[in-house]
Protein backbone atom coordinates (compact mmCIF):
# COMPACT_ATOMS: atom_id res chain seq x y z
CA UNK A 1 0.00 0.00 0.00
CA UNK A 2 1.21 3.48 -0.77
CA UNK A 3 0.55 6.48 1.38
CA UNK A 4 0.40 10.02 0.07
CA UNK A 5 3.35 11.34 2.07
CA UNK A 6 2.80 14.93 0.96
CA UNK A 7 -0.48 14.97 2.84
CA UNK A 8 1.11 14.24 6.19
CA UNK A 9 1.30 17.45 8.24
CA UNK A 10 3.86 18.20 10.91
CA UNK A 11 2.41 16.13 13.74
CA UNK A 12 4.63 17.86 16.26
CA UNK A 13 2.63 21.03 15.76
CA UNK A 14 -0.36 19.78 17.70
CA UNK A 15 0.16 19.02 21.39
CA UNK A 16 -1.24 15.69 22.47
CA UNK A 17 -1.16 13.76 25.68
CA UNK A 18 0.37 10.34 25.81
CA UNK A 19 -1.68 7.30 24.85
CA UNK A 20 -0.64 4.01 26.30
CA UNK A 21 0.21 1.54 23.55
CA UNK A 22 -1.14 -1.81 24.68
CA UNK A 23 -0.08 -4.20 21.97
CA UNK A 24 -1.41 -7.71 21.52
CA UNK A 25 -2.46 -10.17 24.18
CA UNK A 26 0.39 -12.55 25.09
CA UNK A 27 0.33 -15.93 23.26
CA UNK A 28 0.30 -17.86 26.55
CA UNK A 29 -2.20 -15.58 28.33
CA UNK A 30 -5.05 -17.15 30.26
CA UNK A 31 -8.61 -16.30 29.33
CA UNK A 32 -8.86 -13.99 32.33
CA UNK A 33 -5.65 -12.22 31.32
CA UNK A 34 -6.91 -11.83 27.75
CA UNK A 35 -10.24 -10.31 28.72
CA UNK A 36 -8.61 -8.07 31.33
CA UNK A 37 -6.13 -6.81 28.73
CA UNK A 38 -8.87 -6.10 26.19
CA UNK A 39 -11.10 -4.44 28.79
CA UNK A 40 -8.28 -2.12 29.87
CA UNK A 41 -7.35 -1.30 26.25
CA UNK A 42 -10.98 -0.59 25.32
CA UNK A 43 -11.25 1.79 28.26
CA UNK A 44 -8.13 3.65 27.07
CA UNK A 45 -9.48 3.81 23.53
CA UNK A 46 -12.79 5.26 24.72
CA UNK A 47 -10.99 7.82 26.88
CA UNK A 48 -8.89 8.95 23.96
CA UNK A 49 -11.78 8.86 21.49
CA UNK A 50 -14.03 11.18 23.47
CA UNK A 51 -11.21 13.68 23.94
CA UNK A 52 -10.47 13.62 20.22
CA UNK A 53 -14.10 14.23 19.31
CA UNK A 54 -14.28 17.05 21.82
CA UNK A 55 -11.09 18.66 20.47
CA UNK A 56 -12.19 18.36 16.82
CA UNK A 57 -15.79 19.38 17.51
CA UNK A 58 -16.74 16.56 15.14
CA UNK A 59 -17.18 12.79 15.24
CA UNK A 60 -19.73 10.02 15.64
CA UNK A 61 -19.32 9.11 19.27
CA UNK A 62 -22.41 6.90 19.57
CA UNK A 63 -21.31 4.47 16.87
CA UNK A 64 -17.69 4.74 18.00
CA UNK A 65 -18.46 3.62 21.55
CA UNK A 66 -20.65 0.78 20.27
CA UNK A 67 -17.89 -0.67 18.06
CA UNK A 68 -14.76 -0.16 20.20
CA UNK A 69 -14.90 -3.53 21.97
CA UNK A 70 -15.13 -5.26 18.58
CA UNK A 71 -12.19 -3.28 17.15
CA UNK A 72 -10.00 -3.83 20.20
CA UNK A 73 -10.71 -7.58 20.25
CA UNK A 74 -9.83 -7.86 16.57
CA UNK A 75 -6.65 -5.76 16.55
CA UNK A 76 -5.23 -6.71 19.96
CA UNK A 77 -6.15 -10.37 19.91
CA UNK A 78 -8.02 -12.08 17.09
CA UNK A 79 -6.40 -10.90 13.88
CA UNK A 80 -3.16 -12.16 12.46
CA UNK A 81 -1.69 -8.78 11.55
CA UNK A 82 1.13 -6.72 12.98
CA UNK A 83 2.43 -3.19 12.40
CA UNK A 84 5.70 -4.49 10.96
CA UNK A 85 3.93 -6.96 8.62
CA UNK A 86 1.48 -4.72 6.78
CA UNK A 87 2.88 -5.85 3.46
CA UNK A 88 2.46 -9.56 4.31
CA UNK A 89 0.00 -10.88 1.70
CA UNK A 90 -1.23 -13.44 4.24
CA UNK A 91 -2.12 -10.88 6.92
CA UNK A 92 -5.74 -10.91 8.06
CA UNK A 93 -7.73 -8.04 6.58
CA UNK A 94 -9.99 -5.63 8.44
CA UNK A 95 -12.47 -3.22 6.92
CA UNK A 96 -14.51 -0.71 8.90
CA UNK A 97 -17.47 -0.36 6.58
CA UNK A 98 -19.25 2.03 8.96
CA UNK A 99 -16.49 4.53 8.28
CA UNK A 100 -18.12 7.29 10.32
CA UNK A 101 -16.65 5.56 13.41
CA UNK A 102 -13.20 6.56 12.10
CA UNK A 103 -12.06 8.03 15.41
CA UNK A 104 -12.56 4.63 17.07
CA UNK A 105 -10.49 2.96 14.35
CA UNK A 106 -7.69 5.54 14.53
CA UNK A 107 -7.51 5.26 18.30
CA UNK A 108 -7.52 1.46 18.19
CA UNK A 109 -4.81 1.47 15.52
CA UNK A 110 -2.68 3.76 17.68
CA UNK A 111 -3.27 1.60 20.75
CA UNK A 112 -2.21 -1.47 18.79
CA UNK A 113 0.91 0.22 17.39
CA UNK A 114 -0.26 0.78 13.81
CA UNK A 115 -0.29 4.60 14.02
CA UNK A 116 2.01 6.95 15.92
CA UNK A 117 -0.12 7.99 18.94
CA UNK A 118 0.92 11.62 18.51
CA UNK A 119 -0.81 11.61 15.12
CA UNK A 120 -4.17 11.35 16.91
CA UNK A 121 -3.74 15.01 17.82
CA UNK A 122 -4.16 15.96 14.16
CA UNK A 123 -7.63 14.38 13.87
CA UNK A 124 -9.69 16.52 11.43
CA UNK A 125 -6.99 19.21 11.24
CA UNK A 126 -6.07 20.70 7.86
CA UNK A 127 -3.94 18.25 5.81
CA UNK A 128 -4.17 15.50 8.45
CA UNK A 129 -4.29 11.89 7.22
CA UNK A 130 -6.95 11.41 9.89
CA UNK A 131 -10.03 12.87 8.26
CA UNK A 132 -13.61 12.11 9.14
CA UNK A 133 -13.62 8.79 7.29
CA UNK A 134 -10.72 6.34 6.89
CA UNK A 135 -8.78 6.52 3.62
CA UNK A 136 -6.40 3.80 2.46
CA UNK A 137 -4.34 6.38 0.56
CA UNK A 138 -3.63 8.24 3.80
CA UNK A 139 -3.04 5.53 6.42
CA UNK A 140 -1.07 2.40 5.66
CA UNK A 141 -3.04 0.11 7.98
CA UNK A 142 -6.39 1.08 6.46
CA UNK A 143 -7.35 -1.57 3.91
CA UNK A 144 -10.38 0.17 2.37
CA UNK A 145 -11.56 3.76 2.07
CA UNK A 146 -15.04 4.00 3.54
CA UNK A 147 -17.62 6.62 4.51
CA UNK A 148 -20.47 6.09 2.10
CA UNK A 149 -22.29 3.16 3.70
CA UNK A 150 -22.54 -0.14 1.86
CA UNK A 151 -19.02 -0.26 0.38
CA UNK A 152 -17.03 -2.31 2.90
CA UNK A 153 -18.80 -5.64 2.62
CA UNK A 154 -18.46 -5.97 -1.18
CA UNK A 155 -14.75 -5.08 -0.86
CA UNK A 156 -14.40 -7.67 1.92
CA UNK A 157 -15.98 -10.27 -0.34
CA UNK A 158 -13.30 -9.39 -2.88
CA UNK A 159 -10.42 -9.71 -0.43
CA UNK A 160 -11.82 -13.05 0.76
CA UNK A 161 -12.20 -14.17 -2.85
CA UNK A 162 -8.57 -13.25 -3.58
CA UNK A 163 -7.48 -15.27 -0.53
CA UNK A 164 -9.44 -18.25 -1.76
CA UNK A 165 -7.87 -17.99 -5.23
CA UNK A 166 -4.43 -17.88 -3.58
CA UNK A 167 -5.23 -20.84 -1.34
CA UNK A 168 -4.38 -18.64 1.63
CA UNK A 169 -5.72 -19.17 5.13
CA UNK A 170 -5.96 -15.43 5.71
CA UNK A 171 -9.24 -14.12 7.03
CA UNK A 172 -11.22 -10.97 6.29
CA UNK A 173 -13.21 -9.23 9.00
CA UNK A 174 -15.65 -6.46 8.09
CA UNK A 175 -17.80 -4.42 10.46
CA UNK A 176 -21.09 -3.07 9.15
CA UNK A 177 -23.65 -0.93 10.95
CA UNK A 178 -27.17 -2.27 11.32
CA UNK A 179 -28.68 0.79 9.63
CA UNK A 180 -26.04 0.32 6.97
CA UNK A 181 -27.58 -3.06 6.12
CA UNK A 182 -30.46 -1.17 4.51
CA UNK A 183 -28.11 -0.59 1.56
CA UNK A 184 -28.82 -3.17 -1.13
CA UNK A 185 -25.13 -3.51 -2.02
CA UNK A 186 -24.65 -5.49 1.20
CA UNK A 187 -27.20 -8.08 0.20
CA UNK A 188 -25.71 -8.40 -3.26
CA UNK A 189 -22.33 -9.03 -1.59
CA UNK A 190 -23.80 -11.50 0.91
CA UNK A 191 -25.31 -13.46 -1.95
CA UNK A 192 -21.87 -13.66 -3.59
CA UNK A 193 -20.23 -14.67 -0.30
CA UNK A 194 -22.78 -17.40 0.37
CA UNK A 195 -22.84 -18.80 -3.14
CA UNK A 196 -19.04 -18.95 -3.31
CA UNK A 197 -18.74 -20.29 0.24
CA UNK A 198 -16.15 -17.71 1.22
CA UNK A 199 -15.47 -19.38 4.54
CA UNK A 200 -12.65 -17.02 5.52
CA UNK A 201 -15.00 -14.05 5.51
CA UNK A 202 -16.46 -12.81 8.80
CA UNK A 203 -19.17 -10.12 8.67
CA UNK A 204 -19.65 -8.42 12.03
CA UNK A 205 -22.91 -6.52 12.44
CA UNK A 206 -22.72 -3.73 15.04
CA UNK A 207 -26.32 -4.31 16.10
CA UNK A 208 -26.96 -1.22 18.20
CA UNK A 209 -30.54 -0.89 16.89
CA UNK A 210 -30.15 2.81 16.11
CA UNK A 211 -29.20 4.66 12.97
CA UNK A 212 -28.68 8.39 12.37
CA UNK A 213 -32.12 9.77 13.09
CA UNK A 214 -34.18 6.99 14.67
CA UNK A 215 -34.39 3.34 15.63
CA UNK A 216 -33.65 0.95 12.79
CA UNK A 217 -37.01 -0.74 13.47
CA UNK A 218 -38.86 2.60 13.10
CA UNK A 219 -37.03 3.43 9.86
CA UNK A 220 -36.88 0.30 7.71
CA UNK A 221 -36.66 -2.78 9.91
CA UNK A 222 -34.09 -5.57 9.42
CA UNK A 223 -35.72 -8.36 11.37
CA UNK A 224 -35.60 -11.30 11.22
CA UNK A 225 -31.91 -10.52 10.66
CA UNK A 226 -30.36 -13.83 11.75
CA UNK A 227 -32.80 -15.76 9.54
CA UNK A 228 -32.04 -13.51 6.58
CA UNK A 229 -28.29 -13.95 6.95
CA UNK A 230 -28.70 -17.72 7.33
CA UNK A 231 -30.91 -17.80 4.24
CA UNK A 232 -28.10 -16.10 2.29
CA UNK A 233 -25.80 -18.97 3.26
CA UNK A 234 -23.98 -17.60 6.29
CA UNK A 235 -23.15 -19.29 9.58
CA UNK A 236 -24.78 -16.96 12.11
CA UNK A 237 -23.58 -16.35 15.67
CA UNK A 238 -25.16 -13.87 18.08
CA UNK A 239 -23.04 -12.40 20.88
CA UNK A 240 -22.98 -9.56 23.39
CA UNK A 241 -20.79 -7.12 21.46
CA UNK A 242 -19.37 -5.63 24.65
CA UNK A 243 -18.31 -9.01 26.09
CA UNK A 244 -14.66 -9.47 25.10
CA UNK A 245 -14.68 -13.17 25.95
CA UNK A 246 -17.69 -13.82 23.73
CA UNK A 247 -16.09 -11.84 20.89
CA UNK A 248 -12.81 -13.77 21.29
CA UNK A 249 -14.71 -17.05 20.92
CA UNK A 250 -16.78 -15.88 17.95
CA UNK A 251 -13.70 -14.71 16.01
CA UNK A 252 -11.73 -17.85 16.92
CA UNK A 253 -14.45 -19.94 15.26
CA UNK A 254 -13.71 -18.39 11.81
CA UNK A 255 -13.54 -20.23 9.41
CA UNK A 256 -16.61 -22.19 10.47
CA UNK A 257 -16.56 -25.99 10.24
CA UNK A 258 -19.59 -25.80 7.91
CA UNK A 259 -17.47 -24.08 5.25
CA UNK A 260 -19.83 -21.11 5.15
CA UNK A 261 -18.88 -17.47 5.67
CA UNK A 262 -19.56 -16.30 9.22
CA UNK A 263 -21.91 -13.53 10.35
CA UNK A 264 -21.44 -12.33 13.92
CA UNK A 265 -24.42 -10.32 15.09
CA UNK A 266 -22.85 -8.30 17.90
CA UNK A 267 -25.56 -6.89 20.14
CA UNK A 268 -24.27 -3.51 21.24
CA UNK A 269 -25.42 -0.17 22.60
CA UNK A 270 -24.71 3.13 20.94
CA UNK A 271 -22.69 5.29 23.36
CA UNK A 272 -21.87 2.32 25.63
CA UNK A 273 -21.24 2.47 28.59
CA UNK A 274 -21.89 6.16 29.22
CA UNK A 275 -25.18 6.67 31.07
CA UNK A 276 -26.36 9.73 29.17
CA UNK A 277 -25.32 8.43 25.74
CA UNK A 278 -26.22 4.77 25.88
CA UNK A 279 -29.07 3.83 23.48
CA UNK A 280 -29.77 7.53 22.90
CA UNK A 281 -30.15 8.39 19.20
CA UNK A 282 -29.26 12.02 19.91
CA UNK A 283 -25.64 10.92 20.37
CA UNK A 284 -25.14 9.70 16.80
CA UNK A 285 -22.89 12.67 16.07
CA UNK A 286 -23.35 15.02 18.97
CA UNK A 287 -20.20 16.56 20.42
CA UNK A 288 -19.91 16.38 24.23
CA UNK A 289 -19.42 19.50 26.31
CA UNK A 290 -16.42 19.84 28.61
CA UNK A 291 -18.58 18.77 31.57
CA UNK A 292 -19.97 15.78 29.68
CA UNK A 293 -16.42 14.67 28.83
CA UNK A 294 -15.52 14.82 32.52
CA UNK A 295 -18.59 12.84 33.50
CA UNK A 296 -17.93 10.24 30.79
CA UNK A 297 -14.30 9.87 31.87
CA UNK A 298 -15.42 9.36 35.47
CA UNK A 299 -17.97 6.75 34.41
CA UNK A 300 -15.31 4.96 32.34
CA UNK A 301 -13.08 4.67 35.42
CA UNK A 302 -15.82 2.70 37.14
CA UNK A 303 -16.87 0.65 34.13
Amino acid at each position, binding site marked *: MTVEEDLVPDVGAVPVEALRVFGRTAPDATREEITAHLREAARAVRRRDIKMVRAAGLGHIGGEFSVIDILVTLYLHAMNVAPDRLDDPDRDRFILSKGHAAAALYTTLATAGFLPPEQLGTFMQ*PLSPLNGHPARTKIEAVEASTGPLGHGLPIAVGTAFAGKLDGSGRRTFVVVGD*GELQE*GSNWEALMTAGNHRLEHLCVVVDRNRL*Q*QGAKVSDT*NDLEPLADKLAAFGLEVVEVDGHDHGALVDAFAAVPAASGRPTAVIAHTHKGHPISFMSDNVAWHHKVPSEGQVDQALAELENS
Partner: protein
Amino acid sequence: MTTLATSTLHDCRDAYVAELVQLAENDERIVAVVNDSVGSSKLAPFQEKFPDRLINVGIAEQDMVGVAAGLANGGKVPFVSAASCFLTARAMEQIKVDAAYSRHHMVLVGQSPGMAYGELGPTHHSIEDLAWLRAIPGLTIVVPADPEETAQAIRWAAQHDGPVFIRVSRMGVPAVNPNDYEFVAGKAVTLREGQDIAVVATGTVVSRALEAAELLAARGISARVLSMPTIKPLDEQALHAAATQTKGIVTVEEALTSGLGGAVAEYLAQHVPAPMRFVGVPDQFAPTGSVSWLLDHFGINAEGIAHAAADLLGV
Protein backbone atom coordinates in the same frame (compact mmCIF):
# COMPACT_ATOMS: atom_id res chain seq x y z
CA MET B 1 -14.29 43.82 4.43
CA THR B 2 -17.22 44.32 2.14
CA THR B 3 -20.75 44.74 3.41
CA LEU B 4 -21.60 41.21 2.27
CA ALA B 5 -18.89 39.65 4.38
CA THR B 6 -20.30 41.31 7.49
CA SER B 7 -23.99 40.65 6.79
CA THR B 8 -26.12 37.90 8.33
CA LEU B 9 -25.44 34.39 7.08
CA HIS B 10 -28.26 31.96 6.32
CA ASP B 11 -28.54 28.18 6.20
CA CYS B 12 -30.60 27.65 3.02
CA ARG B 13 -32.09 24.43 4.43
CA ASP B 14 -34.35 26.60 6.59
CA ALA B 15 -35.82 28.40 3.56
CA TYR B 16 -36.20 25.07 1.74
CA VAL B 17 -38.14 23.37 4.50
CA ALA B 18 -40.33 26.39 5.28
CA GLU B 19 -41.30 26.61 1.60
CA LEU B 20 -41.88 22.87 1.28
CA VAL B 21 -44.19 22.80 4.32
CA GLN B 22 -46.17 25.73 2.92
CA LEU B 23 -46.48 24.13 -0.51
CA ALA B 24 -47.51 20.81 1.02
CA GLU B 25 -50.31 22.49 2.95
CA ASN B 26 -51.92 23.54 -0.32
CA ASP B 27 -50.93 20.61 -2.49
CA GLU B 28 -51.67 17.12 -1.27
CA ARG B 29 -49.57 15.58 -4.00
CA ILE B 30 -46.35 16.72 -2.36
CA VAL B 31 -44.43 14.03 -0.47
CA ALA B 32 -40.88 13.91 0.91
CA VAL B 33 -38.64 10.89 0.31
CA VAL B 34 -35.52 10.53 2.48
CA ASN B 35 -32.64 8.19 3.35
CA ASP B 36 -32.40 8.53 7.15
CA SER B 37 -31.87 12.21 6.36
CA VAL B 38 -34.66 13.96 8.26
CA GLY B 39 -32.17 15.64 10.59
CA SER B 40 -29.54 16.48 7.99
CA SER B 41 -32.25 17.97 5.73
CA LYS B 42 -33.87 19.81 8.68
CA LEU B 43 -37.17 18.17 7.70
CA ALA B 44 -38.55 17.73 11.23
CA PRO B 45 -41.29 20.40 10.70
CA PHE B 46 -42.49 18.55 7.59
CA GLN B 47 -42.43 15.23 9.44
CA GLU B 48 -44.47 16.69 12.31
CA LYS B 49 -47.15 18.14 10.02
CA PHE B 50 -47.32 15.34 7.47
CA PRO B 51 -46.00 12.14 9.08
CA ASP B 52 -47.69 9.96 6.45
CA ARG B 53 -46.26 11.97 3.59
CA LEU B 54 -42.66 11.49 4.67
CA ILE B 55 -41.29 8.25 3.25
CA ASN B 56 -38.04 7.18 4.90
CA VAL B 57 -36.60 4.21 3.01
CA GLY B 58 -33.58 4.10 5.32
CA ILE B 59 -30.00 4.17 4.09
CA ALA B 60 -30.83 3.12 0.53
CA GLU B 61 -30.38 5.83 -2.10
CA GLN B 62 -31.12 3.76 -5.20
CA ASP B 63 -34.34 2.59 -3.59
CA MET B 64 -35.11 6.19 -2.59
CA VAL B 65 -34.95 7.61 -6.11
CA GLY B 66 -36.72 4.60 -7.64
CA VAL B 67 -39.51 4.84 -5.04
CA ALA B 68 -39.81 8.55 -5.82
CA ALA B 69 -40.26 7.78 -9.52
CA GLY B 70 -43.00 5.32 -8.65
CA LEU B 71 -44.66 7.92 -6.46
CA ALA B 72 -44.55 10.36 -9.40
CA ASN B 73 -46.16 7.71 -11.58
CA GLY B 74 -48.88 7.51 -8.93
CA GLY B 75 -49.62 11.23 -9.21
CA LYS B 76 -47.49 12.42 -6.30
CA VAL B 77 -44.89 15.18 -6.47
CA PRO B 78 -41.90 13.72 -4.62
CA PHE B 79 -39.19 15.89 -3.11
CA VAL B 80 -36.22 13.59 -2.59
CA SER B 81 -34.06 15.06 0.14
CA ALA B 82 -30.64 13.56 0.79
CA ALA B 83 -26.96 14.47 1.08
CA SER B 84 -25.99 15.46 -2.45
CA CYS B 85 -22.95 13.17 -2.51
CA PHE B 86 -25.00 10.00 -1.92
CA LEU B 87 -28.07 11.13 -3.84
CA THR B 88 -26.10 11.76 -7.01
CA ALA B 89 -23.21 9.29 -6.82
CA ARG B 90 -25.21 6.36 -5.51
CA ALA B 91 -28.43 6.79 -7.41
CA MET B 92 -27.04 8.18 -10.68
CA GLU B 93 -28.67 5.57 -12.87
CA GLN B 94 -32.02 6.07 -11.17
CA ILE B 95 -31.65 9.82 -11.78
CA LYS B 96 -30.79 9.18 -15.41
CA VAL B 97 -33.42 6.56 -16.17
CA ASP B 98 -36.20 6.76 -13.58
CA ALA B 99 -36.25 10.56 -13.34
CA ALA B 100 -34.86 12.07 -16.55
CA TYR B 101 -35.39 9.47 -19.30
CA SER B 102 -38.86 8.81 -17.86
CA ARG B 103 -39.49 12.57 -17.69
CA HIS B 104 -41.09 12.26 -14.28
CA HIS B 105 -42.08 15.31 -12.33
CA MET B 106 -39.82 14.80 -9.34
CA VAL B 107 -37.51 17.11 -7.42
CA LEU B 108 -34.11 15.94 -6.25
CA VAL B 109 -32.87 18.14 -3.46
CA GLY B 110 -29.13 17.67 -3.00
CA GLN B 111 -28.32 18.64 0.56
CA SER B 112 -25.01 20.06 1.79
CA PRO B 113 -23.35 19.91 -1.63
CA GLY B 114 -19.92 21.12 -2.65
CA MET B 115 -17.50 20.81 0.24
CA ALA B 116 -20.04 21.67 2.93
CA TYR B 117 -19.12 18.51 4.83
CA GLY B 118 -15.53 19.78 5.08
CA GLU B 119 -13.50 17.53 7.36
CA LEU B 120 -15.67 14.50 6.65
CA GLY B 121 -13.64 14.26 3.48
CA PRO B 122 -13.94 13.58 -0.25
CA THR B 123 -16.41 10.71 0.29
CA HIS B 124 -18.87 13.27 1.62
CA HIS B 125 -18.03 16.14 -0.72
CA SER B 126 -20.34 16.59 -3.68
CA ILE B 127 -18.17 18.52 -6.09
CA GLU B 128 -18.86 16.25 -9.06
CA ASP B 129 -22.66 16.61 -9.00
CA LEU B 130 -22.89 19.54 -11.45
CA ALA B 131 -20.55 17.94 -13.99
CA TRP B 132 -22.27 14.57 -13.74
CA LEU B 133 -25.83 15.83 -13.82
CA ARG B 134 -25.41 18.27 -16.67
CA ALA B 135 -24.60 15.25 -18.84
CA ILE B 136 -28.20 14.05 -18.40
CA PRO B 137 -30.72 15.26 -21.00
CA GLY B 138 -33.86 16.98 -19.79
CA LEU B 139 -32.78 17.46 -16.19
CA THR B 140 -33.05 21.03 -14.93
CA ILE B 141 -30.21 21.92 -12.54
CA VAL B 142 -30.70 24.77 -10.09
CA VAL B 143 -28.08 26.08 -7.68
CA PRO B 144 -29.60 28.81 -5.52
CA ALA B 145 -27.33 31.45 -4.01
CA ASP B 146 -29.40 32.57 -1.04
CA PRO B 147 -32.54 31.72 0.99
CA GLU B 148 -35.01 33.71 -1.14
CA GLU B 149 -33.74 32.12 -4.33
CA THR B 150 -33.92 28.70 -2.66
CA ALA B 151 -37.56 29.22 -1.68
CA GLN B 152 -38.52 30.47 -5.15
CA ALA B 153 -36.70 27.62 -6.89
CA ILE B 154 -38.52 25.09 -4.70
CA ARG B 155 -41.86 26.76 -5.52
CA TRP B 156 -41.03 26.70 -9.23
CA ALA B 157 -39.97 23.05 -9.14
CA ALA B 158 -43.22 22.04 -7.41
CA GLN B 159 -45.16 23.05 -10.53
CA HIS B 160 -42.60 22.34 -13.28
CA ASP B 161 -43.68 19.17 -15.03
CA GLY B 162 -40.27 17.49 -15.29
CA PRO B 163 -37.23 16.34 -13.31
CA VAL B 164 -35.33 18.99 -11.36
CA PHE B 165 -32.18 18.86 -9.25
CA ILE B 166 -31.71 21.63 -6.69
CA ARG B 167 -28.64 22.11 -4.53
CA VAL B 168 -29.40 23.29 -0.97
CA SER B 169 -26.41 24.16 1.17
CA ARG B 170 -25.88 24.26 4.90
CA MET B 171 -22.93 26.60 4.52
CA GLY B 172 -23.88 30.07 5.74
CA VAL B 173 -24.51 32.51 2.87
CA PRO B 174 -25.60 36.17 2.83
CA ALA B 175 -28.62 37.34 0.83
CA VAL B 176 -27.23 38.42 -2.56
CA ASN B 177 -30.29 39.08 -4.69
CA PRO B 178 -32.25 42.38 -4.79
CA ASN B 179 -35.41 42.72 -2.68
CA ASP B 180 -37.77 42.50 -5.65
CA TYR B 181 -35.95 39.46 -7.04
CA GLU B 182 -37.86 36.94 -9.10
CA PHE B 183 -36.32 33.58 -9.93
CA VAL B 184 -36.83 32.57 -13.55
CA ALA B 185 -35.56 29.11 -14.48
CA GLY B 186 -32.85 29.37 -17.11
CA LYS B 187 -32.19 33.08 -16.48
CA ALA B 188 -28.99 34.61 -15.17
CA VAL B 189 -29.12 37.59 -12.82
CA THR B 190 -26.91 40.62 -13.34
CA LEU B 191 -25.89 41.58 -9.82
CA ARG B 192 -23.33 44.17 -10.87
CA GLU B 193 -22.69 45.92 -14.17
CA GLY B 194 -19.19 46.04 -15.61
CA GLN B 195 -17.33 46.29 -18.91
CA ASP B 196 -13.82 44.92 -18.42
CA ILE B 197 -14.57 41.39 -17.39
CA ALA B 198 -17.53 39.19 -16.43
CA VAL B 199 -17.52 36.97 -13.37
CA VAL B 200 -20.12 34.23 -13.75
CA ALA B 201 -20.80 32.54 -10.41
CA THR B 202 -23.29 30.07 -9.01
CA GLY B 203 -24.72 29.21 -5.61
CA THR B 204 -22.85 29.56 -2.35
CA VAL B 205 -19.95 31.46 -3.91
CA VAL B 206 -21.88 34.25 -5.66
CA SER B 207 -21.21 36.47 -2.64
CA ARG B 208 -17.49 35.83 -3.10
CA ALA B 209 -17.75 36.97 -6.74
CA LEU B 210 -19.33 40.22 -5.54
CA GLU B 211 -16.51 40.71 -3.05
CA ALA B 212 -13.99 40.05 -5.82
CA ALA B 213 -15.66 42.75 -7.94
CA GLU B 214 -15.00 45.19 -5.07
CA LEU B 215 -11.34 44.21 -4.97
CA LEU B 216 -11.11 44.63 -8.74
CA ALA B 217 -12.87 48.01 -8.62
CA ALA B 218 -10.20 49.19 -6.19
CA ARG B 219 -7.68 48.34 -8.91
CA GLY B 220 -9.66 50.23 -11.55
CA ILE B 221 -11.14 47.10 -13.14
CA SER B 222 -14.85 47.10 -13.81
CA ALA B 223 -16.27 43.59 -13.33
CA ARG B 224 -19.74 42.47 -14.28
CA VAL B 225 -21.14 39.86 -11.89
CA LEU B 226 -23.63 37.38 -13.28
CA SER B 227 -25.29 34.94 -10.93
CA MET B 228 -26.22 31.67 -12.67
CA PRO B 229 -28.86 29.96 -10.53
CA THR B 230 -29.64 27.59 -13.41
CA ILE B 231 -26.76 25.47 -14.72
CA LYS B 232 -29.02 23.66 -17.15
CA PRO B 233 -30.49 25.10 -19.29
CA LEU B 234 -27.85 27.86 -19.45
CA ASP B 235 -28.78 31.49 -20.07
CA GLU B 236 -27.01 31.70 -23.42
CA GLN B 237 -28.18 35.25 -24.10
CA ALA B 238 -26.58 36.60 -20.95
CA LEU B 239 -23.36 34.70 -21.71
CA HIS B 240 -23.35 35.99 -25.28
CA ALA B 241 -23.69 39.55 -24.05
CA ALA B 242 -20.98 39.07 -21.43
CA ALA B 243 -18.59 37.57 -23.96
CA THR B 244 -19.09 40.34 -26.50
CA GLN B 245 -19.26 43.29 -24.10
CA THR B 246 -16.26 42.40 -21.88
CA LYS B 247 -12.75 41.03 -22.46
CA GLY B 248 -13.37 37.61 -20.95
CA ILE B 249 -15.17 35.42 -18.46
CA VAL B 250 -14.24 33.94 -15.08
CA THR B 251 -16.49 31.16 -13.80
CA VAL B 252 -16.83 30.52 -10.06
CA GLU B 253 -18.36 27.50 -8.34
CA GLU B 254 -18.11 25.31 -5.23
CA ALA B 255 -17.64 22.31 -7.50
CA LEU B 256 -15.26 20.81 -10.01
CA THR B 257 -14.65 23.40 -12.73
CA SER B 258 -16.22 20.97 -15.19
CA GLY B 259 -19.60 21.96 -13.70
CA LEU B 260 -20.59 25.56 -14.46
CA GLY B 261 -17.18 26.27 -15.97
CA GLY B 262 -17.42 23.36 -18.38
CA ALA B 263 -20.95 24.30 -19.41
CA VAL B 264 -20.02 27.94 -20.06
CA ALA B 265 -16.88 26.93 -21.96
CA GLU B 266 -18.82 24.56 -24.22
CA TYR B 267 -21.26 27.31 -25.13
CA LEU B 268 -18.62 30.01 -25.67
CA ALA B 269 -16.30 27.79 -27.71
CA GLN B 270 -19.08 27.12 -30.19
CA HIS B 271 -20.74 30.51 -30.37
CA VAL B 272 -18.57 33.39 -29.09
CA PRO B 273 -15.04 32.21 -28.28
CA ALA B 274 -13.73 34.31 -25.38
CA PRO B 275 -10.80 34.03 -22.96
CA MET B 276 -11.78 32.22 -19.77
CA ARG B 277 -10.48 31.42 -16.32
CA PHE B 278 -12.01 28.78 -14.03
CA VAL B 279 -12.32 29.15 -10.27
CA GLY B 280 -13.49 25.98 -8.53
CA VAL B 281 -12.21 22.67 -7.28
CA PRO B 282 -9.34 21.35 -9.42
CA ASP B 283 -8.96 17.76 -10.62
CA GLN B 284 -8.00 16.24 -7.26
CA PHE B 285 -9.47 14.85 -4.05
CA ALA B 286 -9.48 17.46 -1.31
CA PRO B 287 -7.19 17.07 1.69
CA THR B 288 -8.63 17.17 5.21
CA GLY B 289 -9.99 20.58 6.18
CA SER B 290 -13.09 22.57 7.06
CA VAL B 291 -15.20 23.98 4.24
CA SER B 292 -13.88 27.50 4.75
CA TRP B 293 -10.30 26.22 4.90
CA LEU B 294 -10.82 24.21 1.72
CA LEU B 295 -12.43 27.10 -0.18
CA ASP B 296 -9.37 29.21 0.67
CA HIS B 297 -7.03 26.31 -0.10
CA PHE B 298 -8.44 26.11 -3.63
CA GLY B 299 -8.59 29.89 -4.08
CA ILE B 300 -12.39 29.93 -4.25
CA ASN B 301 -12.51 33.28 -2.49
CA ALA B 302 -12.49 36.99 -3.34
CA GLU B 303 -8.70 37.10 -3.71
CA GLY B 304 -8.60 33.98 -5.87
CA ILE B 305 -11.35 35.25 -8.16
CA ALA B 306 -9.78 38.71 -8.45
CA HIS B 307 -6.44 37.07 -9.18
CA ALA B 308 -7.97 34.96 -11.96
CA ALA B 309 -9.62 38.04 -13.46
CA ALA B 310 -6.40 40.08 -13.37
CA ASP B 311 -4.53 37.16 -14.90
CA LEU B 312 -7.04 36.96 -17.76
CA LEU B 313 -6.73 40.70 -18.37
CA GLY B 314 -2.95 40.49 -18.15
CA VAL B 315 -2.69 43.15 -15.46
